[in-house]
């Protein structure tokens, strides 16, 4: 049995259409990210308000093994963020089941066991930091789990060192840069000692330097055995994973290794994605008749391929 099993999950949400007068906004909570997702389904009329049932997720099944590094990509509103939030029971699927290490997210009494196994890091670093002192914020998760103070202290120090922020431990978060704040948020997740961390576009609001550092930390965590689920818009980041899951309109349309995925560049573009820059370059050169091999993703591979090309010519 896989560590995380997602079975035929559908996530429906109600949205009031234009001629409504404010009703239905209640059911819109937390869907800002998925508002445009899915196909409009049943239209039910209640008075003069038309409620549309949309599907942010539509029959998604996915298995994730322990220690895997998978990335989920897809255009805006493809349902990737919603999928991530069903894994630790923040969203409950309308149909289907999600289980983590044999525990179903629908069993409410186990929800905190699940959340301590599957931690989550969100997009906006500012909005996920609770305390006005860095180390207090990292302690927040373990405190909620009811861990003894001495043990919390140890975990906080370890987590701070893992993200290379130990010297900033007594600072106020608002004095740090975006990348540093996101590292604090990651440390907050690490301190819960999860088996899996879901990153929901962790680098979207960071500058290139902060982005590189955060990705480095993510890879490091994975090498220590933590399962990583990385949702991203940056294909360069996605190619670091063992597996890329492509989502479109609430469905999984591809589940391949980075090499397999990007060798078929036409279908990548069809699902609303961009090729990594190196792959784009290779593709254009190929179009101009230069005989480069398929599936080039990194600059190293590109260089090798060019060299082999020139040696072949000789």
């Amino acid at each position, binding site marked *: 049995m896989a560590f995380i099993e997602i079975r035929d999950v559908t996530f429906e949400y109600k949205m009031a259409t234009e001629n409504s007068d404010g009703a239905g906004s209640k059911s819109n*909570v*937390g869907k*800002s990210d998925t508002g445009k997702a899915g196909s409009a389904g049943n239209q039910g009329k209640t008075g003069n308000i038309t409620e549309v049932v949309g599907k942010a997720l539509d029959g998604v099944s996915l298995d994730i093994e322990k220690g895997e590094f998978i990335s989920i990509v897809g255009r805006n509103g493809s349902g990737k963020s919603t999928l991530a*939030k069903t894994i*630790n029971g*923040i969203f409950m699927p309308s149909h289907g089941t999600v289980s983590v290490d044999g525990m179903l997210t629908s069993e409410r009494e186990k929800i*905190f066991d699940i*959340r*301590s196994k599957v*931690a*989550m890091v*969100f997009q*906006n670093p*500012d*909005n*996920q*930091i*609770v*305390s*006005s*002192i860095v*180390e*207090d914020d990292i*302690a*927040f*998760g*373990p*405190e*909620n*789990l*009811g*861990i*003894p*103070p001495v043990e*919390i*202290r140890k975990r*906080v120090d370890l987590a701070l060192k893992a993200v290379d922020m130990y010297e900033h431990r007594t600072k*106020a*978060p*608002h*004095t740090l840069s975006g990348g540093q704040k996101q590292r604090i*948020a990651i440390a*907050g*997740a690490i301190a*819960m000692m999860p088996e899996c961390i879901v990153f929901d576009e962790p680098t979207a609001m960071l500058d290139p330097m902060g982005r590189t550092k955060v990705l480095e930390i993510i890879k490091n965590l994975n090498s220590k055995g933590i399962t990583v689920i990385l949702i991203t818009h940056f294909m360069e980041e996605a190619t670091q994973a063992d597996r890329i899951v492509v989502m479109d309109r609430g469905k999984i349309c591809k589940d391949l290794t980075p090499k397999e995925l990007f060798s078929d560049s036409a279908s990548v573009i069809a699902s609303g994605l961009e090729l990594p820059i190196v792959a784009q370059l290779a593709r254009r050169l190929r179009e101009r008749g230069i005989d480069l091999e398929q599936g080039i993703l990194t600059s190293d591979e590109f260089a090798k391929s060019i060299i082999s090309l020139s040696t072949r010519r000789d």
Partner: protein
Amino acid sequence: MIRDITLGQYFPAESKVHELDARTKIIITFLYIIETFVVNNFLGFLVLAIGLAIVIGISHVPPKFIFRGLKVIIVIIIFTFVLNMFMMDGRVLWHWKFLTITYEGLYRAFFVALRLILLIIGTSMLTLSTKPIELTDGFEKLLSPLSKVGVPSGEIALMMSIALRFIPTLMEETDKIIKAQQARGADFESGNIIKRAKSLIPILIPLFISSFRIAQDLALAMEARCYHGGKSRTRMNQIAFKKVDLIAAIIVLIFFTLATMTRFIDIWHFA
């Protein structure tokens, strides 16, 4: 510029006063407030003032910072002073048309003004020497016995600390909104008071909406980190009374007793 704001009026320094447990300081401040009302003569105030001066001396907080707190209420002090001066009946010192200053009035005016000044300086020593986060922790601990009768002390403390945490975030947000509205041609600098107040609406409404969005995000993040109320929650920082707290408490109690005793010796000499 917005990044440099200090939360509250905490003055960072290393001193015995800063070192005290927040609970000790809260209790002392509370007793001090009562004491300023128990004392009914100038000698008692002298005792309190000497005590306060010693605390200020030990705390390494520059007097400049302490008197800054007084600026805010100077109007109130002057107002009560003038009111008391003219309103009391008694031995007339000075008389002009309907205005009369009496000996008792003048005494009373000085007395009340002094009480107010001592009150403000004394209580601001608490916030000057204690980090806001320590204050909330202290309040949580002090309120925790009340949680047995249903007072959610942990939740109250968390609310206070989240509020403190988000002051700089909301300031940055306000800054962004102001700039965005200015870029769209909004004018915040001209016109009379009413016009200027109205021009705040395009700032306040987006700020309101964005603070709800932030709250939503934060709630999700807290849920993902297993927050489920104050029950079975532990804390990393265990605050504990130290020797210095006991010494401070004893010294303070001596001063309070002295100040209270002046009630009984002084009555015949002054008023």
